[in-house]
């Protein structure tokens, strides 16, 4: 298992390196001079040249790439062209919105989906199963930003329970911050919960057909314990896989939702940076997200080993 893990980490680092080359070269080929962008169209040629020199834009592409990657490795993400502050600082501020948002929605989606999926599997073929899975089928089809609009209309415009958008900052108190994040989190969580419930149900059904479940029932184990202890644990592998995918999706998927609710998170940062050609910010955020996806995948693998001891001796 340890060897396997080390191998996974090595592959992950390699992927990250290739990804950095891809990101850098894609953003290299697009038109637009960052120095000109910073100074504006009426910049003096001398000033422009000086700034280009200072930003290192006159160096060959390869050297600039090396410079950027070695910076990333030690946590120096460069300086934003438009904000004139370190990219890492910008990311740090925005993560304080996006990460709680992603975690809350992941939590909501899990606490809704697991019981619903297990419930449906336990009542397979009965009306309760048909109804919940029909609802899940509809949930999968709902675009999260449309659901967000409906939530805003219902809870912010009509019932006036929560703000329709914006974020007061965590300085305004945890409660005020959570209040601003709850609608976006629900909007993100619902379609994810629908997918997760379907996966949970089919994973449970697969397990419930196994011999050891029948054995457990035959020796008089109560149905509830068999369901929650024996079956769920064995059904967790596909569920974990989807959860891992969903966390990565939630971090990136917040782009649209953060735009709907005007939340100052990572998604909005990268969206604005793209439109303002603030490439160094875009590069930094994309690399961070790719790294997150890779790390989460490795964590999911470790999760497999925790859930299923048989996998611990693998390779």
């Amino acid at each position: 298992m340890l060897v396997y893990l080390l191998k996974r980490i090595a592959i992950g680092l390699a992927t990250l390196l290739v990804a950095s080359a891809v990101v850098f070269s894609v953003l290299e080929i697009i038109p637009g001079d960052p120095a000109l962008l910073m100074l504006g169209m009426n910049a003096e040629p001398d000033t422009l040249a000086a700034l280009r020199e200072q930003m290192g834009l006159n160096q060959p592409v390869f050297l600039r790439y090396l410079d950027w990657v070695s910076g990333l490795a030690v946590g120096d993400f460069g300086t934003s062209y438009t904000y004139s502050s370190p990219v890492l600082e910008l990311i740090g501020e925005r993560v304080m919105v996006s990460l709680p948002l992603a975690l809350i929605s992941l939590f909501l989606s899990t606490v809704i989906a697991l019981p619903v999926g297990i419930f449906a599997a336990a009542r397979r073929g009965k009306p309760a199963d048909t109804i919940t899975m029909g609802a899940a089928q509809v949930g999968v089809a709902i675009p999260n930003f449309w659901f967000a609009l409906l939530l805003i209309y219902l809870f912010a415009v009509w019932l006036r329970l929560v703000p329709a958008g914006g974020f007061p900052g965590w300085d305004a108190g945890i409660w005020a911050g959570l209040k601003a994040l709850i609608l976006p989190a629900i909007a993100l969580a619902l379609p994810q919960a629908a997918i997760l419930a379907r996966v949970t149900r089919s994973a449970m059904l697969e397990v419930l057909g196994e011999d050891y479940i029948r054995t457990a029932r035959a020796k008089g184990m109560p149905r509830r314990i068999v369901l929650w202890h024996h079956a769920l644990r064995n059904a967790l592998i596909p569920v974990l896989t989807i959860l891992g995918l969903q966390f990565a999706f939630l971090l990136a998927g917040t782009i649209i939702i953060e735009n709907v609710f005007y939340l100052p998170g990572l998604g909005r940062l990268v969206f604005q940076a793209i439109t303002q050609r603030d490439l160094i910010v875009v590069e930094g955020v994309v690399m961070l997200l790719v790294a997150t996806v890779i790390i989460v995948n490795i964590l999911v693998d470790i999760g497999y080993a925790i859930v299923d001891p048989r996998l611990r001796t693998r390779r």
Partner: protein
Amino acid sequence: MSQDASMPPAPPQNHFLQMALANRSFMIGLFITLIITGMALLSFVWTPYDITHLVVSDRMQGLSWAHPLGTDHLGRDILSMIMIGARNSIAVAIVAVGIGMGVGVPLGCWAAARGGVVDEVLMRFNDLVFAFPALLSAIMITAIFGPGAINAIIAIGIFNVPVFARVARAGALSIWPREFILAARAAGKNRVLITIEHILPNIVALLLVQGTIQFALGILAEAGLSYLGLGTQPPMPSWGRMLFEAQTRMMIAPHLAIFPGLAIVITVLGLNLLGDGLRDLLDPRLRRER
């Protein structure tokens, strides 16, 4: 004694049709998909109103006999806009699936046929694309190369490639060890010919099912990009764009936000049901427990 006598009778020709008619998901999904497609096709020749014709005096009307789904802030008929929007969504999603299949399936089949280094390199490359959050990258592509339907198609299409490559490879790998492939190889057929004549027909069901799923995801992705202003550009109506324009006017006219969203949900629901149904019908081995 002939062996044939004890064998079960061959299934009748209309066996598939009977199964299809009995499959609830498939029938509902097919029905919805046909309605939406029909609506999109109809919009080429007829819509209730001309949406390029702005009637400002009729703006933001609620539901009425004249405008069943109301009008928007420029007095355009919502039903007409949804019909034309269907055309856009379907076109973007179909071409994006086409790109994914056109590039991904040959790559996946190649990886399965060659194995070894080719397979390893292609699959690591696949993993690399998967590591990029698809939506973020699509936003990057459309923002960098300019917003518009064409770039949206490319952005969505690129992320379909590894999906189809993976499905095609997995399907092909399960066919290659079979005896009839061995027979074909013994007959001197090369890998390309075997792939075209024997592998592809056997994985077509898998690809079709994945195709409907990616189609539905494509519609969602297009709506998201258009909502951000990066997909289909005005004055061409699109469902995502309609939702964006509805957001600021929701307090006075909630219907503006409801119907384009419902159109998306119904279309995606229809396609997902169709995909589920197809999976049950085409490949009994993949049949989900019901």
